[in-house]
Each structure stands twice: as C-alpha cells, then as structure tokens.
C-alpha cells in the first residue's frame, strides 16, 4: 500500500494532536524512537525538541521513504514559534521564507514557488529556549528550535522546493507561559488554511526525466541483452531513442528498428559496433 506523499514533522505531541485528530491519522510502527502517524493524504512524525532531533526524525522518515520507491514526498515542519513582533498575534500562521541556524551561523532559504495567502517571515533556529532575550540577540521575526535541522536533513534527500516550514505564533518571547489548549485550538481552527498552503506546495512537482514508453523499454532491454551492448552503447542508444521520442518520431519506427537488430543479433564485437551505427542512422539522432 502506498504511503501518503505529504509528511508533517512536528517537535511536540501538543503540536501534532490537532492534526492527528483533524485528519484522522492512525498510529503506525515508530520509526526508530519517533512516533509515526498516517492517513490517506497525510503522514506525521513527532521528532522531539531541538534541531538535532528534528534532523534525525526527518532523515529517518526520508530514508524510509526512499526504500519505498514512491514519488518524492513534500515534507513540512509545522509547529510553534515565538515572535519578537507584537504585531504578529498569538495563533497567527506564518510561512517561513528564511531560516537562520543561529549556532552554526548558516542560512537556509526555503524555496516558495507557489501562490499562497499566508504572511511570510524569517525564523532563527536556536538550540536552547529563547526567553526574554537581550535586544539584538534575535534578528529574525520568529524563533524556534527545529526548522534549521529539519531543512538541513530534508535537503540531503529532496529538491529544496519539497520542504517547507509553517509556524504558528505561540508567544512573544516575554517569558509568559504559553496557553497550550488555546494554541491547539488555533491550529485546529486553521487546519483548512494549512491544507490549502500544503496543497499549493505539493502541486510544485519535480521536473521529471523523459522515459521510454513501456513497449519501447521492453524492446530496448531486449536489445541490450541480446546484443550485449556495452554500458556506453546502452546509454547512447537510450539517448537516441529519447531524442526520437521528443522529436515526435513515431514510437513504432524506433521499435521496428530495434526489433530488426534483435532478430539478428551480432556474432562478434565488430558486428555489434556496426549495428549500433546502423541504429544511429535509423534513429537520426544527428542532422535531420
């Protein structure tokens, strides 16, 4: 059974709960020590607090995904963040457009290629909680403890536009205790908005390499085997077939050319090389 193509990475169970309930996610086997939840459209993993935990959970998830040979997922780090800006109300959602790994002094710029209605902002990832910071300590709009780790791990596996960060403003870094129930209610109320943003991000698929159609692939595999093509020759013939396909040459023409060679496979190297040249002429990969 296919797994969902959209995965959320949260640090805390209290961030995860409104999503689990709202999307009807089921508890699956843990990935390492990370709790994993899954539904038809969304999956979720709970990383624990801190950039290292977030990186480890994201890497575990994406390693697992790679083993499934499904399409590349979209991963979203979703969770709470403090804001130094009192104009940003508690409970407001922010799509993050710049992440600073404060300890490592590194920048991560999420790739936002899609339209959306959320306000955007910058975020600094700290490895310790930031409470009542001195002026100048926080240079970004928001502060969290995960996003930089999440992005660093995601980038080892995915094109950068397949990893996004959405934060919900949880406090104003003033040391007041956060109201967990109220924040969960905010997340629940804005689930539809979150879904819209995620859907827009997910619609930005990857540029895919062209593939031979099924019949031509079968003929090509047979050719490679029967004629004992070298790796270089296989790669060349494959390229010429793709070129013919992209030029709009009928697939049947190429298939006929391959089948003629397969029917009378070469007896020795020289004959094989001549056949490859013959194929080159038949597929016209050069001057038309």
């Amino acid at each position: 059974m296919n797994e969902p193509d959209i995965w959320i990475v949260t640090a805390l169970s209290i961030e995860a709960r409104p999503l689990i309930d709202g999307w009807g996610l089921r508890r699956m086997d843990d990935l390492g020590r990370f709790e994993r939840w899954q539904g038809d459209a969304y999956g979720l993993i709970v990383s624990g607090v801190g950039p290292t935990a977030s990186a480890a959970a994201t890497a575990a998830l994406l390693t697992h995904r790679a083993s499934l040979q499904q399409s590349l997922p979209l991963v979203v780090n979703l969770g709470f963040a403090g804001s130094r800006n009192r104009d940003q109300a508690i409970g407001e959602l922010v799509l993050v457009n710049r992440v600073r790994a404060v300890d490592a002094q590194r920048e991560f710029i999420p790739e936002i290629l899609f339209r959306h209605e959320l306000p955007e902002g910058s975020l600094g990832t700290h490895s310790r909680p930031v409470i009542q910071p001195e002026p100048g300590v926080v240079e970004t709009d928001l502060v969290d403890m995960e996003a930089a780790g999440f992005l660093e791990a995601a980038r080892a596996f995915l094109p950068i536009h397949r990893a996004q960060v959405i934060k919900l403003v949880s406090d104003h870094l003033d040391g007041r205790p956060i109201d967990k129930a109220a924040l969960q209610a905010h997340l629940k109320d804005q689930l539809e908005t979150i879904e819209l943003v995620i859907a827009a991000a997910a619609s930005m698929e990857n540029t895919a390499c062209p593939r031979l159609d099924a019949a031509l692939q079968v003929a090509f595999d047979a050719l490679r085997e029967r004629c004992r093509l070298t790796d270089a020759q296989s790669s060349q013939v494959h390229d010429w077939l793709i070129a013919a396909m992209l030029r709009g040459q009928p697939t049947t023409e190429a298939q006929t050319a391959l089948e003629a060679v397969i029917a009378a496979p070469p007896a020795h190297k020289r004959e094989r090389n001549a056949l490859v040249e013959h194929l080159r002429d038949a597929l016209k990969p050069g001057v038309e």
Partner: protein
Amino acid sequence: MSQAAKHFSRIYVERGANAYPFAQQILQRFPTAQRVDIEDYRDVFNRPGQDFQRQKQSKALILARKKQDFLYPANEYVQGRDVANFHYTTLQLNCLYNCAYCFLQGMYTSANLVAFVNLEDYFEAAERALSQRSNPSKPLELAISYESDLLASERILPYCREWIEFARQQPDLVIEMRTKSGNWAALQDLEPHPRAVLAWTLSPQEIIERYEQDTAPVNQRLKALSLASQAGWPVRLCFDPVLPNANWRSSYRELFTETFARIPPNNVVDVSLGVFRLNTEYFNRLKKNRPDTDLAYRFYHRENGVVTHPHNEREMLIDFARTELTRFIPADKLQIWT
C-alpha cells in the same frame, strides 16, 4: 489553474544592495512583491537541490552587489577572443527566456535572475580597463549582455539605457548588447549611439518555437532590428547556433533572404555564425536541468572538453550557412564560431 507564483513576485535583497539607486528603481517597479532580506546572494542562488525548470516557471529576482571581477578578458571559450581589447561583463545572471540549448542552464544551478545593482563600480572598472587596455590604438570592446539578455528585461532592469549613456562619455568604448527580444520600444526614445551595437540572434520560426521558449517570434526580432538600423544604431546579426532540424536548409535559406530583405547588408556591422557547442560539464548539467529537449540526447562528439556536432556535420552546417550568407554580405563580415 496553476498554483505557481508569478514571476518576480518574490525579490531577495542582499545586505547593502538596497542602498543603490538602481536597486531602488527596480524595487519601485514591484511594489507588491514579497521582499526577503538575505546576507549574500549566493545563499539563494547557489543552493543545492534547486529545480531549474520549476524555477523558470516562477522566477525570483535577486538584487545583489558585485564585489569583484567586474570585467572579464576574452578566453578560449568566449566569442570575441580574436578581437583586440575585448572584455565582457556580467551585470545580470540568467535571463527571462528559456532556450533549450542555453549554456546558462549548464553554468548555473538556479534559474532565478540575479541583478547586480552597483553600476557605479562597473563604470569605474570600465574606465580603468579603458586606460589600461593592451592596444590603445583600438577601442575597448565590451559585451555587456554576455550571460543574459538585457534588452529582454530592459523594462524592469534598465541596464542598456544606463550603459548607453555611460558609453556616450567614453570615446574609446564600444559596447554590445545581444538579444532575442523584439523590445525595441525600450530604447527607441534614445539618440542612436555609433558605439553601442545592438546584436540580434535570429533563428527560423520553427526553431524558435521548438528551442527558444518565451523569446520573440522572428518577425518581431526582424522588425526591431530594422527599426533600430533605420534609426541609426549599428546592428549585428547572429545566426548561432544553426540547428539542423528537418528542412533546416530551406528554413535557414528563407531566414537569410527575409533578413536581408528587411535590412540592407551595408547597415550590418557584421554577422556571427556558429553551431551548438558546450563545455562538457555544462552539457552534462544541461541534460539534467533540461530533460525535455531532444538537443540533450542527440549524437554529439566530445572533443577537448567540448560537446558539439561531429566534424562532418559541423562542416556541413557552416559551409551551407557561409555559402548562403555570402550571397548577401562579403565574407570578411562573417565571424564563424565552431
């Protein structure tokens, strides 16, 4: 409906770039764009894992400050290597268009547009190069749109205008702006300048439709170059690369005939002619970034670090084009790049 963001709905501004008047001019043109302040343009432009073609559908603008290497001398891979005092400069990285054979998609990992806004530093460097040029009896020739198409984006990034005005004050400077646009309107209010060469790359319409995505149709380019020439601007024609598609001989013959019916050969500074050729590393990256074009999968030869047509094909393409072009212009006006 596509959910892709509009081009330039996102502008990254490098620290310090904002202060330049050219940057202010640009920002004023995009009042609703999402602005993201960044430390260094390379944090965005050189990110690993960018999807070049995805970005082409939703280009971001990056305003940056060039810190060094304002002018580059000719080298063995650069057109102009045989011209005395030739230099090129990169005011902008990437262009609005999306040509299938473009070397930029092999050179850069990003399709976003970087605009360097510290024009004052470029002008200073040009003045230095002018005073130090190796052959003082000849002018300094400077290609200003070498890694971009400046005229295509002149409405939003008015580099050509700024450089033309700068060139007017420099009697020993010749600048060249090369384009595939029909955007003559962006310059038509300027007085022509005899040392600002406008160069148009021309291709048959079927090549444009197949390989020169988003560029102006050939008729618009011919109209633009004809108007520029009539107004008194020096113009250069570039048939580069000549691409051998079905019926390529008749397509190029028609193009040459149509071109010289629109512009008297005497009004042309020179004609540049070339075939597809790319540094091997760039070619490999192009193939990854541009998997949807048959140009990436053709039968090529790799010679001395360059991927190009086999020798016999090159000869055939160039011989044909040379023969046809010399029906209109003398051979000494033809510059051939293979």
